[in-house]
């Protein structure tokens, strides 16, 4: 990796991002560092919301960026870098959930060993318990349903955005999200969600 890249203040964010990505694709260390610095917290948030486990965030973020920068030469510049990173993160998290299902009971208990579960006021303890149950239910869903629900409900993506990052049609995203909601309600002991006709 050699050479450096400079960025003009007057450029639009999109143009500047394109220049940085192009430099990173050539192996420019400064550009890679810049990309990492500007996207790491965003990826960390995605990972946390997908897993509900703060202790795994660093590892997964590192895996996401290593995979992304190793395959950066194959990144199409007309695509959205954020979307690309989200897709990579979703794949990494999918592997993480697979591994988690195979783990022992001792390791599963580590779900609660997050900062959110630290002893404190009763509300915090209750919230931590709710999160624990919620992610346990989320983790029991099939990968495709979980990913659709995470993108739509937790990440608050529109149907179109979720369709783009998950690379499936809008109708599929909609179906998977509703199906995931039904299964989550059942797993958490909640009443089933209202049907479409009930929505008015």
């Amino acid at each position, binding site marked *: 990796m050699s050479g450096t890249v400079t960025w003009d203040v007057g450029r639009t964010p999109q143009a500047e991002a394109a220049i940085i990505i192009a430099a990173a694709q050539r192996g420019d260390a400064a550009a890679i560092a810049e990309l990492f610095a500007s996207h790491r917290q965003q990826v*960390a948030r995605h990972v*946390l919301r997908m897993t509900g486990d703060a202790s795994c*965030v*660093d590892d997964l973020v590192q895996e996401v*960026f*290593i995979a992304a*920068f190793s395959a950066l030469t194959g990144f199409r510049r007309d695509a959205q870098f954020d979307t690309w990173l989200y897709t990579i993160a979703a794949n990494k998290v999918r592997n993480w959930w697979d591994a988690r299902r195979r783990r022992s009971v001792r390791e599963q208990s580590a779900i609660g060993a997050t900062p959110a579960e630290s002893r404190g006021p009763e509300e915090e303890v209750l919230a931590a318990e709710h999160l624990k149950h919620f992610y346990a239910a989320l983790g029991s869903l099939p990968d495709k349903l979980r990913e659709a629900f995470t993108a739509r409900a*937790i990440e608050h993506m529109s149907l179109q955005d979720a369709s783009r990052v998950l690379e499936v049609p809008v109708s599929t995203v909609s179906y998977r999200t509703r199906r995931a909601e039904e299964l989550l*309600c059942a797993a958490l002991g909640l009443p089933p969600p209202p049907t479409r006709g009930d929505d008015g």
Partner: protein
Amino acid sequence: MSAVDVRPDAGEPAVRQPELAVFVELARAQPVPTVRIDTQSLIAAVAKQRSTRIRWASAGAVVAIAAAWLLWVAIDRRAWLQGTEATRDEAPRVLDGSRDGGEVRAAEPGGTAGERATIVAPEDPIEPPQPTPPAGAAPSDEASTDDETKPTEPVLDADELARRAEKAMAARRRDEAIALLTTLVRRFPRAPAAKAALLDLGRLLRVDGRPDDARCAYRLLVARWPSEAKAPEITRVLASLGDGPECRGLKPLR
């Protein structure tokens, strides 16, 4: 039964169950931990990953080149073997050294277990097949040192050489016939036509007043086809020619 509209509404809520929405809001509100990854170590890890990929790609390329080379060698060898015109009829001769003037000593039926057959090389070595030169190329060194053995056509096969030699003999062009037969015998030592060619060559050389060369032709014939050693014509001719200098292939060692 009423039809159900399955088309998604662009504004449809992601979560319709209010109690589930509470869980979802808790998930959204999780404090994102600060990422503690050193940029330099990340870049180093990426560089390591890339170099590993390059190493694997290089190893794959080397394997592919080696496979292609082996394939090329195999094809080239096959083409060479086809060039020597080794036919199925001749194939057993390759293993049967006795028919080439050598000797195969197989283990006796009552011999001890593990006793191996031995093969003794013929005293009169068979001339190796000469590679066929490309069209228009100069004749080989050996041929160029002996004007009589210059091939008239460098790329003719055994049958064509035999046909041309027949024509030359019929037209009483003895020198041309000798040259063609010599080329046939040297270039295609295993070809069926080489046996008849040696007989004709010996006769022509004798008529041409070259008894030493004729003797070498007959000796080579006997060495390659030992069963011919008892043929009356050959026995008689060799007896009439008497002893002479040793031969190296078709050439007398003077």
